[in-house]
């Protein structure tokens, strides 16, 4: 059947369905596991798509308006697709004292986006972070899992250009 093809064609959705089925067995009610399920969906897709939230609504029998409420309430949940490289600029005290705001505005200038946004080419997403635990090399930023320390605006441009070259 056509719809089964569609269903299995998306392995991420299949995994999400499997996760929901497990949650249904372990939780005493369907709503109790909503946040865990949304975490899973975000892990899989990088953000919460309307399709994923619909799927959760139908499977778990939770109104979409309620899921939307939870998804918009917690800052952790991201409702738009993230870029290939997620830049988290630390704005914690140590970094701030060492000029994190200059680093941040340099990145904003370079990428022409605001915090929380993604570049139109879907390459970069800009986020702020509170402390990355690397105060010794402040100011720092993290691109995906990699930490960059003792930043200067000039260094930022170089780093970003490197990523741009990689594409």
């Amino acid at each position, binding site marked *: 059947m056509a*719809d089964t093809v569609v269903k299995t064609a998306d392995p991420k959705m299949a995994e999400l369905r499997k996760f929901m089925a497990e949650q249904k067995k372990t939780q005493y009610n369907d709503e109790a596991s909503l946040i865990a399920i949304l975490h899973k969906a975000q892990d899989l897709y990088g953000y919460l798509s309307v399709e994923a*939230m619909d799927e959760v609504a139908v499977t778990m*029998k939770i*109104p979409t*308006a*309620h899921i*939307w*409420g939870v998804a918009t309430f917690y800052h952790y949940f991201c409702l738009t697709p993230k870029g290939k490289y997620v830049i988290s600029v630390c704005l914690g005290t140590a970094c701030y004292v060492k000029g994190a705001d200059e680093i941040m505005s340099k990145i904003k200038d370079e990428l022409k986006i605001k915090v929380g946004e993604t570049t139109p080419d879907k390459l970069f997403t800009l986020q702020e972070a509170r402390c990355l635990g690397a105060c010794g090399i402040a100011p720092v930023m993290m691109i995906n899992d990699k930490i960059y320390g003792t930043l200067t605006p000039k260094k930022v441009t170089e780093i970003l250009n490197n990523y741009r070259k990689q594409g």
Partner: protein
Amino acid sequence: MDKKMITIYIDDKPYQVAAGQTVMQAADKVGFRIPRLCYHPKLSIEGACRVCIVELEGARNFIASCAYPVADGMKIRTNTPELRSARRDIVELILDNHPMDCHTCERDSNCELQRLAYSMGIRKRHFEGEMKHYEKDVSGVAVIRDPNKCILCGRCVRMCSEIQKTSVLGYAHRGFKTVVMPAYNMPFRDSSCTACGQCINVCPTAAFLEKDYTQELFKKLNDKSILKVAQCAPSVRAAIGEAFNIEPGRTMEKQLAAAIRRLGFDYVFDTQFSADLTIMEEANEFLERLQGKGKLPMITSCSSAWMKCLEQYHPDLIDHISTCKSPMSMQSAMVKTYFADKIKRDPKEILSVAFMFCTAKKYEAARPELEVNGMRATDLVITTRELAWMIKSAGIDFLAIKGEEFDHPLGLSSGAGTIFGTTGGVMEAAIRTAYELATGETLLDIEIGAVRGLQGIKEGKVVMDGKEIRVAVAHGLGNAAELLDIARKDPNRYHFIEIMGCPGGCVGGGGQPYANSNSIPLDEECLMKRAEALYTLDRNKTIRRSHENPDIQRLYKEFLGRPGSPASHKLLHTHYKQHFPVGIIPESLKQQKPAEPANK
């Protein structure tokens, strides 16, 4: 329930109250009306607004009386200077984030927040802070949403999820940025909203309103080139008086006909006429189904919000739905065919306007499958509230006006048509006619008590031709979902089911007058009085069965033939199909089994 009586002290005086209730409930019963905002007796306790705070001796803070249970010996104060000041500040802080545009607001003089601010004695503003600014959502044909007016009391959210169980509305975002909206901030047009309008009824401000078509109508009423034809639903006459400060339960039938005529209509017809017509078709369809031509139980199809709800949430039951159009759409279809022929007028030159108790009728009127010969059947739908405003705005003295009759040939109705407006009414009317069609005998005891009243789900039975016919009635979409689950589990339990989308049926529709200052929205007593008004009209009529209506008989003789004839099918029946609000259901599921109603 714990019936134990305990003593509580309110403002230093002892009162005997029943244990197991809240401070607010207890205080209400002994004559203290503690100010309140987010509280509604039919909805769960939210405790969001804090307006109902009282002082409890021994407690560190003021307590929210809507949520706090009574205890023996507790000492409550409701009106100390500290409390008054705190309450005043709470209300002023709500006002602070509210547009100061009362004099141009739709709900001016009918707004709970305005009343509350006045009664708190807020004459001068102390605070000034940031204010929210959002776009109005005017995408829907029936309901519009203005988040700027919203004070986040959550009554609409609770109404939508607890009573209607459609859960279209929810809170999104947090803190200062919290907004009540449909999922994904979807425009109302595309959301799963059934347009029932109950959010409008419970909203204390103007955050939800019906889409206003009054200006358009005023303009068209002055157009000499078109023939203006009105129809007026039963429930409108049972409630419109309330908009003129008349106590609920007084019908204004003849005044309405006169007032609508004065607004500039050429013909004023009665939707009750086509309620009779609906019964003729529906009773006939039911008897056909009883004989094996179609699925049982048959479910009624008059309520537009229920129609949308069915197509979205219960598509598995589409074959059970009567194919009959609603009375409004039948009436409009007759206006643009039968009546147009009779007066020899091009139906394109006829403006067909329906005065309804309902917001969802605005949605229904726009449904393309209800078009007649390529024309929209009902051109404009105006709610009771809008009509009351139009009457006032046009300078018609509604209370002094001399009553007039509805026009022929679509204005005469039986008592059966009248009771359509209340829950159980369609069922009762249908039984009156079906019984006689099936048995050839007249049903003598025509007041069917089992289907009357405000119980959520009602069951009854009649013996027809030696066969027991089991019927059920539900009002409010939440009760409907519950009843349908019973019917799904036990498919032979019922033969005939009536469903109305709103609590109380059409008398509690989303377009009815706002609750006045001494009442609450959807007060049961008020709904009962409106229903009783219709039952009284029925009782005072000589013709109480639809098939005895001479104008209905004439319509069949001259135009339609018989109930269920090809002409009837073309003009009076319709069809339904599964409907997905945009983006609500994933593509992959659309070909699969229908989605269950996403209830809490």
